[in-house]
């Protein structure tokens, strides 16, 4: 966020927000492009928010493309950030992540890469409560400068949260917290299916993605598959992200590997163990080696998946679809 934004708790003034929306081409048009083309829509220094949560529907293919492109100094936000946070730090794509929780996952212990970067002051992990993250996106989605809420009060998290303000409720006299709206420059969201226009239908857990898409100034969708607009129109009540918010649609099967995509594949646990092992002893060298092997050497997304391995992919796929077996 720019310095003007910081003074207002990061809130984009209303007319500026409206102007940014007005100037977009929001019509029903084909937005299909390649991962590499979509990666060009993100500029150094922008605020990029990531859909999904922890090890679910992480927009890994898009992050992969951005890191390969060498994008720099992104401010990144997500509800809960996992390995992708490590890799954004380690690659230099970001030195500032705003989230409620940052680690690979409880099973793998506290992230060594996150620790190495934050404890040395090389990068910033800005911590908000999980609900605060959600309500900041919600305020952004609604076009209001803040949301009132009732947690974070009294805590150290509030002391360190830039821009949150307490207020005496004019109706009840109660103490409330006002958290400032987040309107990311770009939201990266991975979905099970969408049409060429960007109408996305999500299955299962939606996390903060629906609000995030409405809040963002641009949205890049990666999708397991592109379906026809006719298919979307047969069940419009299943559309969770509307085409009008979307600027790019990229078809990337297994686009959130090694994380899961609800109903299609579960996390690639073997690969996640491998990452944890590679970064356990020397986080910097380990992350560098990991990026080299999985991000820079493969020449495309299929080659990346190949490195992870076919057996893992098939196993993740089998476990993923099992949610519909009952």
């Amino acid at each position, binding site marked *: 966020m720019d310095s003007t934004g910081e003074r207002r708790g990061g809130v984009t003034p209303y007319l500026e927000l409206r102007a940014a929306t007005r100037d977009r081409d929001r019509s029903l048009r084909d937005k299909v492009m390649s991962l590499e083309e979509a990666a060009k829509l993100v500029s150094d220094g922008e605020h990029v928010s990531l859909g*999904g*949560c*922890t*090890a*679910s529907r992480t927009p890994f293919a898009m992050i992969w493309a951005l890191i390969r492109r060498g994008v720099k100094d992104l401010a990144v936000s997500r509800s*809960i950030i996992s390995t992708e946070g490590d890799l954004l730090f380690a690659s230099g794509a970001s030195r500032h992540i705003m*989230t*409620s*929780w*940052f680690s690979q*996952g*409880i*099973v793998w*212990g*506290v*992230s060594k890469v*996150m*620790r190495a970067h*934050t*404890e040395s*002051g090389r990068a910033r*992990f800005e*911590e*908000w*409560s*999980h*609900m605060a993250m*959600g*309500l900041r*996106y919600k305020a952004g989605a609604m076009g209001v400068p803040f949301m009132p*809420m*009732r*947690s*974070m*009060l*009294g*805590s*150290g*998290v509030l002391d*360190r949260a830039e821009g949150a303000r*307490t207020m005496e409720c004019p109706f009840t006299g*109660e*103490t*409330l917290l006002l958290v400032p709206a987040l309107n990311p420059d770009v939201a990266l969201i991975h979905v099970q299916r969408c049409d060429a226009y960007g109408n996305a239908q999500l299955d*299962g*857990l*939606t*996390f*903060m993605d*629906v*609000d995030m898409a409405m809040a963002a100034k641009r949205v890049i969708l990666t999708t397991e598959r592109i379906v026809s607009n006719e298919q979307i129109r047969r069940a419009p009540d299943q559309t969770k992200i509307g085409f009008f918010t979307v600027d790019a649609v990229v078809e990337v099967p297994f686009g959130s590997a090694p994380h*899961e995509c*609800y*109903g299609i594949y*579960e*996390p690639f646990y073997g690969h*996640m163990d491998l990452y944890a092992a590679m970064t356990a002893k020397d986080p910097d060298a380990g992350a560098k080696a990991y990026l080299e092997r999985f991000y820079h050497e493969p020449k495309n997304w299929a080659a990346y998946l190949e490195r992870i391995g076919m057996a893992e992919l098939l196993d993740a796929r089998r476990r*993923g679809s099992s*949610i519909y077996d*009952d």
Partner: protein
Amino acid sequence: MTTETANAPDAAAYTGSELLAVMSARLLADGQTVFAGVGIPLLAAILAQRTRAPGLTILFEGGVIGPFVEPGKLPPSTNEQRCARRANMLVSITDVLLMLQRGYVDVGFMGGAQIDRYGNLNSSFIGDAERPKIRLPGTGGGNDIASLAEMIVAMKHEKRRFVEKVDFITSPGFLDGGTSRRDAGLPAGGMFRVVTDLGILGFDAETRAMTVLALHPGVSAETIKAKTGFPLPVPADVPVTMPPTDHELGILRELDPERLYTA
């Protein structure tokens, strides 16, 4: 994870984590709604559901209401499909957290890294916030849960974890005790129980300082005091808990055969 069974009265029979899970499961009542974190809280909630509280409704932060988690298929966090299996309802993360705010949750249930005498929890920093010795993963939903629900915390009882004052208040307990929590704008919820591998702890109704409510079999008042970094009152007639039964342990081991969370 390393196996820490030193505190358990009978190391051969169950691990410290199993003891935690069993003891906290027993605090949950039928018909309640419990907001459970991953790990021990998740295991304990399912254990309660399969024993004394079949009508327990479990909520997960990922946006899950009333699921059945399949034995042997524990999720890596509360945000993957394993959490959602056969749920009654899936909502957004923000909406499930708002259920706490709306008052729909009876009990919040999570683990803790560091706690102080007023039940404040730290999962953000060890050392200084600006240049921490250890940067921990942070609040997640912990702050929201602790701000808005009656809390059960399950954690290992070690002196370095039970400290006079936490380095940082990630999730509010009773803050500085007395009415300070309410005064800060948190009129609802608050610490209810802390379950450790040594005993069950509660909080004084006035001062809001931690007290011992029960000790696990074989644990002495001296032991629990020695492992606590602040003065901890132990009543003379402190009750002793019933050890985990084979039935309880059997369910836990069926749920977590790989010992992801109960090693």
